[in-house]
């Protein structure tokens, strides 16, 4: 077996590594390089040192975008995971036990499909649909449901609530996937454990906090990283749904949108790359921090 080991491993790795190097590593290296230029996206490339980063430091929209990304970064994972855990618990364990098997609440199979459904819709479609849900006049779905005497809520056109609307859509779209993910995780938790706990007189509440969550911890950790990365993106929704793309008045601007607009609308590819570099480090820091902070023994509890 020793002789064949290395060719075997290399044979497996060569294609993915080549793809990764070409389309990820090389692209990142180029982004780093271009972030030091004033390139417009066409024509000559001129090096300007760290000017782009200085400019970025003084850019109000940049700080606004960072703020919005942080807002999503904090709230999106917490709320999504909380909702998904509760739903997954109800679907899998919430129905109590019969014949040594834990079951979900009545009709859980149907619910599972319903929860997963948003995941099947393309994000662009979700954005258009929610654009109508949040319509600022009586033709909007929510405003249409409100009593006739109310003056319409502006939702996306109101600087105070626009970002919250984006958050709601992101959560609505993400929950289904994490319900399925957590369900799979819960399926792998042995029924014996639940049964033993139930025999000891544990309530559903105790089961959830003392058994399910600790045993699911590594899954939750992964979910947290995924959702955090999603929070750094949010591009499609903001681009399609919001007033003036990232407005009103930059109230929904996020880093990914800024990158896109600078690169393709404002012909400032160099500056866009500098933003890309910032986003790269932010995402990396977040992933590293999350994995470190949430590290704990999965059997500790």
């Amino acid at each position, binding site marked *: 077996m020793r002789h064949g080991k290395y060719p075997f491993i290399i044979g497996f790795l060569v294609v993915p590594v080549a793809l990764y190097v070409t389309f990820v590593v090389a692209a990142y290296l180029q982004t780093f390089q271009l972030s030091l230029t004033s*390139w417009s996206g066409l024509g000559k490339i001129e090096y300007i040192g760290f000017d782009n980063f200085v400019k970025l430091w003084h850019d109000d929209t940049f700080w606004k975008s960072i703020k919005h990304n942080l807002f999503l970064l904090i709230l999106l994972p917490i709320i999504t995971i909380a909702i998904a855990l509760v739903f997954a618990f109800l679907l899998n364990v919430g129905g109590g036990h019969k014949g040594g098997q834990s079951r979900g609440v009545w009709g859980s199979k149907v619910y599972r499909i319903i929860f997963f459904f948003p995941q099947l819709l393309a994000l662009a479609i979700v954005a258009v649909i929610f654009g109508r849900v949040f319509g600022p006049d009586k033709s909007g779905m929510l405003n249409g449901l409100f009593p006739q005497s109310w003056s319409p809520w502006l939702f*996306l056109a109101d600087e105070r609530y626009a970002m919250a609307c984006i958050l709601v859509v992101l959560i609505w779209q993400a929950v289904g996937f994490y319900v399925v993910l957590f369900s799979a995780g819960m399926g792998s938790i042995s029924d014996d454990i639940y049964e033993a706990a139930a025999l000891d007189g544990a309530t559903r509440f105790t089961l959830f906090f003392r058994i399910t969550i600790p045993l699911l911890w590594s899954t939750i950790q992964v979910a947290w990283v995924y959702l955090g990365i999603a929070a750094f993106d949010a591009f499609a929704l903001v681009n399609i749904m919001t007033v*003036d793309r990232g407005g*009103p008045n930059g109230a929904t601007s996020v880093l990914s949108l800024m990158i896109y607009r600078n690169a393709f609308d404002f012909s400032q590819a160099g500056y866009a790359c500098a933003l890309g570099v910032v986003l790269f480090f932010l995402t990396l820091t977040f992933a590293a921090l999350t994995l470190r902070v949430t590290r704990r023994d999965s059997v500790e509890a």
Partner: protein
Amino acid sequence: MTEIFANEVGRRTLLRRAAAVGLLATPAVGLLSACVGGGDDKPATQSTGTKSADNPLGIDPKAGVEIVIFNGGLGTAYATDVDTPAFNKKWADAKITYSATEEVSTVVQPRINAGNPPDMINNSGSKLMDFGAIVKAGQAADLTDLFAAPSWDVAGKTVAETLVPGAIEQGTYDGKPFAMNYSYTVFGLWYNKKLFDKNSWTIPTTWADFTALCDKIKAAGITPFGYAGANASYYMVRALLTSAGKIGSEQVLKDIDNLKPGAWTAEPIKQAAQAWGEIGNKYINKTFLGLRHTEVQLQQDQDKVAFYPCGSWLENEQAKDTPAGFEYAVCAFPSVTAADKLPATAINAAAGEIYFAAAKGKNPQGGKEYLRAMLSKEAALGFTKLTKSLTVVAGASDGQTISPGLTSANDMLTKAGKDVFMGYLFDTWYKKLDDESRAAVNDLMFKGGDAQKFCDRMEKASQAVAKDSSITKFTRS
């Protein structure tokens, strides 16, 4: 979504962009001239004939002319059904070789580089060629003799004299005309004529009349004025800057385009912002900030909005949603002050859609003659009938009923006379500034109408662009 994008790129931006390409050309040429072959190669043997009163451009009556037409929003029927027959009526032996393309640069640029260009080219669409680069490379024929030639069908006038003001200037580079910008978009306040007639509301010419009428309209339960804040706030930017241009003449807008310090805080801009901010405070529906142009335009078709600032593509765009009781009409933006430099009838209108004759083709004079045929009153009228777009041929569709909105736009143009100005180009030159102007105008119109804040914010953004060395600068005079 596709519909929104198609509309935006298709009509609005494209016409303006085509026009803007002309002016933004010069400084960008250094980079891009490489794409278009240089001027060293010898011109092919070119057909010529003897100049005469009947043949002012001296074409060879038997030489064929090859034309390439962009197949886009305007279609191609105007070329095959109107222009070519008109040309052949006069020159029966000159065979027209016609082709259409959706990607002008892909099809034509290699032929230009190979020294074998078509004789007349319609440079348009999202894949148009950089016209400044073409001019710099010596590939576009000088159109001076075309514009000086007698008109095709207006006796006693030269071609130039039959055109609207500014039409030739828009295709002029370093003092010489190289492009014919054919289609013509006029901007103003659009309304439903039937609704206004029914209520005997008269079109205002002063700001006091305008606000008084808005009060009446509001009392009738209709939103007096509106535009779509979500994706079409640049219509409002145009309204505001048109007013500013009327107050202080087009120089105000040229200063803005040239990023002159203090251009945005100039008195005319402030007055215009003040006046429009008032309108926003009192007469707009605040929910429009979150709506798209299609939604607000639909509300206007339902008589829920009285005035809507837009360009002359509006009627055609709304054709399928316009109910029977609705008849589009347009009026000039009312004068803001009694001391406006331009009269109340003055309007903003811009030519677009480039047509040019290749300098190094087989028959450049034939290409120009084809352009002369296009600039005949008859062909221009045919174009307008088919495309519902006006042309730069002045008064070509006078007295014709093509559609009520177009008739109204034409009337407005006639009333404006020489007081037609081309407007501004900063929105295509500096997208970032364009972006800021959209957000700032939304803030002005929907959030309290603070004119000073609007001016200061734009001034700051404009100076930031001026100081940013990574942005290529353009100037106009």
